[in-house]
């Protein structure tokens, strides 16, 4: 019985195929994970501290960072809070500026108004933790809701900072969302970081010359 002999060159090619497939698979998974985490393809609402362009020590003594929300659920959210830690030795938190995400209002002819946020810059600068809260005590008449979101670029609020004298070029400062919640009356429907129903993305400030 005549043996069947393979072409040695062809044999080497055949041995390479599994490796090529494995590498392709890894690349594919990597790309998926990148897309998943970068662009939040899951649809879970995400609160994002937007990372700005590299800041100039000379020109950006004061600056603002947008905190945006990707989407909301179908219910009303009468309360919202977020806690962000920052390096209070190199940044001074100056306060909160208006975003463009509205709350419902039956006092306004447009049926909407901007929320008034509670925060304490003094306490935040002492502790290095910015705690910001909005609370509607009307039973939902002045709540956040999906209908008042824009198509894109939903800025919940803007954080205003000043660079302290201790800042140095090349410093990288993290702004970390320690906790955040869009609270619904039925807590099961809340968007909360603690339950995973709200995703967050931290911000990063890079200091240039």
């Amino acid at each position: 019985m005549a043996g069947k002999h393979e072409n040695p060159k062809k044999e080497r090619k055949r041995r390479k195929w599994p490796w090529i497939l494995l590498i392709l698979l890894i690349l594919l998974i990597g790309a998926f994970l990148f897309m998943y985490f970068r662009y939040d393809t899951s649809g879970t609402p995400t609160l994002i501290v937007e990372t700005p362009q590299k800041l100039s020590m000379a020109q950006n003594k004061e600056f603002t960072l947008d905190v945006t929300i990707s989407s909301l659920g179908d219910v009303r959210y009468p309360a919202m809070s977020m806690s962000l830690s920052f390096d209070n030795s190199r940044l001074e938190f100056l306060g909160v500026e208006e975003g463009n995400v509205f709350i419902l209002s039956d006092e306004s002819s447009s049926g909407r108004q901007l929320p008034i946020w509670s925060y304490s810059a003094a306490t935040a600068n002492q502790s290095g933790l910015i705690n910001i809260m909005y609370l509607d005590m009307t039973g939902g008449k002045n709540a956040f809701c999906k209908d008042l979101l824009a198509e894109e670029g939903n800025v919940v609020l803007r954080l205003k900072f000043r660079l302290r004298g201790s800042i140095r070029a090349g410093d990288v400062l993290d702004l970390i969302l320690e906790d955040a919640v869009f609270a619904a009356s039925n807590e099961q429907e809340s968007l909360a970081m603690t339950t995973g129903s709200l995703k967050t993305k931290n911000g990063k400030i890079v200091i240039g010359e």
Partner: protein
Amino acid sequence: MRFNKKILSMILVFVMILGLLPAASFATAAGEEDVVYLSISFDGEYISDKNGNLFAYMPVPISAFEKIDLAEYGLDNMLYDGDGDGEYDTTALQLLIYAHEELWGGDWSEVTFDALPGSSYFRGGIFGFTENLVYFLNGDFPVDESQQSDFMTVGATSDRIVLEAGDFIDIASFSCYSFLWDQLGGFHLFADTEDNYVHSYSMEAGETLDAKLLHSFCDLMFGEGWLKGAEYYEIFYGTTYGDAIGTLETDEEGNFSLTIDEPGTYYLWCYGGNGSEDGTHTTCDYYSETGTPCIVSAPAYAILTVEGGEEPEPAPEEPRAAQDVSEVLNATLAKQVENIPAPAFGTNYGEWTVFGLARGGYFEKGYQYFEDYYARIVEYVNTTAGEINLSGALDKNKSTDNSRLIMALSSIGKNSTTVGNWDLVEAYSANGINWIRKQGMNGTIWTLIALDTGNFETSDPTIRQQCVDAIVSAQHNDGGWSLVTAKTQPSNVDITGMTLTALYPYRDQPAVAAACETAIQWLSDSQLENGGFPYGQGETSESCAWAIVAATTWGINPDTDPRFIKNGNSAIDNLLTYYVEEEAMFEHGRGAGVNAMATDQAAYALVAYDRFINNEPSLYDYSDVVIDEPTPAPETDEMIATIGLPAQINGADAFNGVISINKWDNEGAYKLIDFIVEVPEGIDVTDVSAGSRLAGGEISWNLEADTGLLRVVYFDANENTDLTITGEEFPAELFTISFKAMNIEGGEKINIGIGGMSVKLSSDSSDEKAMIVVDTENEKASGEVEVVVGISYSAVCLYTGDNIDLIPEAKKAIAVAVTGIVNGTKLSYNDGTNAIDFNYSAEITEKTGISSYVALVDTEIATENFANEDYFTIPGGEAPAISFGDTNSDGTINAQDALNIVNSWLRIGEELADNDILVQNVNGDSRINTFDALGIVEKFVNGADFGVVTKAATIKD
């Protein structure tokens, strides 16, 4: 046999099985479109309503009882839509409830019955009957068509009897239930000779009435029933029911004839049966003894109008001249001054006396008698309102304390918006309608009266209207009001008089005008023949006084207006009958002896009348009083410091002292604060830290070994920053001093006090304004700590509920500090009656340095019981931990917790359990409300400690 009766009474009475009876026609007279007629009898005789009127074919407006909401009585499963039109029908059940409460004067909540639709039977209490009822509707047994079958006919129960205008429902109850077998039992009906049921006959004088008395018979056990003439039955007639001028007897077919010569209105009636057929027995025992049923049947009654002459009109009474009461009034007021030389806060010997004297013009505004009273009031208000701490409220539950005082202060020209340090008017807005309504009608009535005495503006502009609406909606169908808003009590002259007085300024509102018109008529109708007014079963001078006040308020002369004169006796005549001339005082009831309260009320009623006949503004129209402008609250510069210490420690324990301050001005440019603490021997200081709300400085301290003096200074040495305190709540924590006991022997008591505290604005010592001395001389600026050995307990009450917002009045929060125990160890309390597992509070423990536990307990348990070691056990293991403000136990306090508290206050979600109350009442007052939600915000944003934690660390028992 008794067993059988029980069984039958359990299963049958409202579920009547009977044969169909011949339908009797029922004539509806003109004008009956909106009423039904109601008869109620017991053992063959009609019973009376609360006013003594017989329930005998009594007209009841449908509009009066169709409003009865069965759901409010827990009977929502008995709502009935018989015709399927999507709307619930008006049923006999609503009539029963209305008749029981409003007409008979009972409390429906005390009626016990099965609450299943279509099978209800009343087991007790309705109209005072011990057992069940049977009905007759329009001369027939009501039948539940839905349960009709060839085998049996089922009687309809009250929730299935749909009532229409003109219907007549005859209700009977018997002490003997043998009617279930009794073929002679049932109802009686007057009829014409054609067997048509009628309630009224008419004829000319001298003619003969030929009519018939019918008797419904039934055999409930065998489903048979019929209607026939009541043979050989006795009928009574007369001009007054029950007072017969003659009798008749029916023939063998129930026919009878009656001739009357005198025109007039006559009544015909027969009594029902209640005894044996031979008349030898009258009770149910007859059945027990003989096996023969008792004769039980309902009475009947009809009206006979005999025409042929005009009723002579009563001779018109001579118009009365208004009498002068000034002599009695002056003597009474003089006596009051003599009897009550120093009026003070209180229902007796206080506001009413001052009010009467002021409105009676006995003393002028500014007279020393009034000024002295006011001085006593300021002292009382500063103490009491401070203790209550509810925005000027003088009592947690009784808004009338504020109202009565405001009414009196306005009468002497004092402005109630600034009484001492408090605004008594603000209490209404701050505590809201729930606080006001805790006293039922009195709360809303007196709020209106008080606010209108000074035309006071309220920060909640809706308060007045909320009161008006609550009052109007509580009006009874007869036109009066009672003390409670639920209409479960009969109308009451006193309350109706007060209500009319309170509503007068709001008479332009149509609803108010309509309500008051009927109320005045009710008041007039209630007047007795002696000119007085009833109170319960009797009459009192106070009721008469309030009728007089109401009448004069509405421009009615209670001495001459026919509405307030009965049998020639006016309300004023009547009030004066309570006057005891020798003592110049009034009695509460005639012959009962003079009484201070009766004298107060009679005095101001006479003042009201005297003002009326002299054309002066009415008693509560203060347009003739000049009320002082509000004086700004005295601005006290005094800053007061206090120290909170644990009651007990072990000899080697570490513990904390929490120093607080009563006020702070963030605009005051305070630069530095310093003070000294006298630290006793055997105590070391391990740390001094600034409170979480204090900002702007850094702390420096030193314990001087020789003297034991701890010196503390707090300021910003580099930038001279202003010192500030975040948040609004005071007292605010300034510093925490961490002490360590150095092996002190048990039994010793150590004293720690703060002193020499000052707040400095600058370093210029020559400038007297550069330094504010803080009061450390007060008793709370020092404290005593008892050194104990081993495990020991001390307890304080953090708060008690006031039933207004979510915390029951019967509950209080207790904090127990335990020495000699490992933090977090399980702690159980059992006094033999109450077993309670305490929750460990890490926050209070951290604040005080001593292991601390909290629980919500019944107020009946004395707080000192929680300091009794005999009641505690330490079973081992970990105690359940409690974290104030963490409403969802997720370990994070954020917006969700604040919202959860708002939702609790809005009553969204489930009722709070005891531990929920502990967690949510973060500011430690008597209520869970939006202040607690704001407490969460403040904690979250400013890092401020919760009020309940600070309270636990600083409160002294």
